């Protein structure tokens, strides 16, 4: 009984924390004045859930291990409150003979395609430049492995804007907005399979 109470309390707490985060980040149908309250509530709940403790704190580690093992570490607001746009990564391959080709991150199955889309969303949304660059670089390395004669690779990340129904009917299709570009040149040998 005690275990069940604690377990369900954790499920509800993480769900509430995420819903407060959603409201704080907005936009939602709630008035803007609620944002401040939501932000404070999210911070308070995160504190209660041990998220503000030091990473080495045993209570935080025990709690994190349990919730991750039970799959209850996040809320359940998929595609909510609104469906976000998506991101696209294009590789511009420059060959020694000045030829230029374009390539998308390649995967073999549809199931992996869903995961690759998730990875691109993570790359697009992260606020850490260094992390974004490392993730883009690892994808670029795999493209490089498939095209070992390439001189340099430019990775271009953009956000994809989705048209509304009205815009679509008027002929507007998805838009592409440039966000970041990274240039990678080969100084040593091409990436080996073990690098990615």
């Amino acid at each position, binding site marked *: *009984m005690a275990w*069940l109470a604690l*377990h*369900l309390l954790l*499920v509800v707490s993480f*769900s509430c924390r995420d*819903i407060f985060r*959603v*409201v704080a980040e907005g936009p*939602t*149908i*709630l008035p803007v004045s609620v944002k401040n309250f939501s932000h404070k509530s999210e911070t308070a709940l995160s504190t209660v859930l041990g998220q503000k403790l030091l*990473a080495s704190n045993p209570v*935080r*580690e*025990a709690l*994190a*291990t349990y919730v*991750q*093992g*039970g*799959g209850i570490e*996040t*809320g*359940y*607001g*998929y*595609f*909510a*409150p*609104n*469906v976000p*746009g*998506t991101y696209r990564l294009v590789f511009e391959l420059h060959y020694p003979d000045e030829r230029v080709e374009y390539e998308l991150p390649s*995967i*073999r*199955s*549809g*199931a*992996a*395609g*869903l*995961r*690759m889309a*998730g*990875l691109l969303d993570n790359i697009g949304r992260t606020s850490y430049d260094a992390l974004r660059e*490392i*993730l883009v670089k*690892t994808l670029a390395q*795999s493209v490089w492995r498939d095209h070992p004669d390439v001189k340099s690779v430019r990775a271009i990340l953009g956000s994809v804007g*989705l048209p*509304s*129904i009205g815009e*679509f*009917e008027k002929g507007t299709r*998805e838009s592409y907005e440039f966000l970041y570009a990274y240039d990678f040149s080969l100084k040593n040998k091409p990436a080996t*399979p*073990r*690098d*990615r």
Partner: protein
Amino acid sequence: MERLIEFLFRPATDRWLILLRVGLGLQITLYSLSLRSDWNYLLSGTVRRIAEALLSLQSHFVPRLGWPISLGTQVGLHEETVLFVAWACLVVAGCGLLVGVACRFSAIVAWFFHLCAAKSGGFVSYGMDNFMTIGLFYLMLSPLPDQFSLDWRLRNLRPKHSQLLGFWRRVLQLHLCIIYFFSGLTKCLGSGWWDGSNVWRALIRPPFNVIDAEILVRWKYLFPMAGILICLLEFGYPFFIWSSRTRKIWLFGVCGMHFVIGVTMGLYLFSLVMIVLNVAAFGPGLFRREEKPTVLQPEAAAS
């Protein structure tokens, strides 16, 4: 208090557990097979190491693929080899659950290696992985084996705590209620679910754009209704799933919603795991009353 105990520990047959075991066995098998060609690509190298480093900031004890890979390295095995072994373990565990061989061991192996893959592939994980973890976590703790498993039929094995069958079903039911309540509530906060624009955006958003937008736009008048229906089904789930009068409507509604999501957005595995969890939790006894639970431990029942 007595009513609460009666609610939580109501005796139940193992039909729900049969559905959960077979359903998750099928899910794990299909999950592994669908990722075979990209398994190493998604879970090896720098992306895995970064995901695991970030995971370590939360806890060092959450299972991850780095553990077997480190062990393998010590005995001279390459990362690719260990990843293949992990994948093979998942397939075997999935098949084991499907037919009911070494049920608990299969459930633990499936939970462990799936969790490893989900956490080490943190950047490429999505909602389905969470629901698989939830399902496997409860399956692993439930009183296995069930009557339809080969463990029961061929090896004559019986669960040790069959009186807890009802309890674990309740835990799954309550968890699903929380999931749908919060999912529905969060959707209700977005204006796009009320005017249908979120349904449109979800259906044309790559890589979920399975149906051509030119075809979808002809159905634009249905989108607001679909958006409101989704909010209603999810938000109303904990209120209408318990009553015998509305349970059928809600269960069919929610399973139908997941089926349509699977077909129209290509989220087949996500839909399958949601349908499995729903049918296991609320399906048995839907059309006819469940038979009296089989008494497996006469001494416990008598006391």
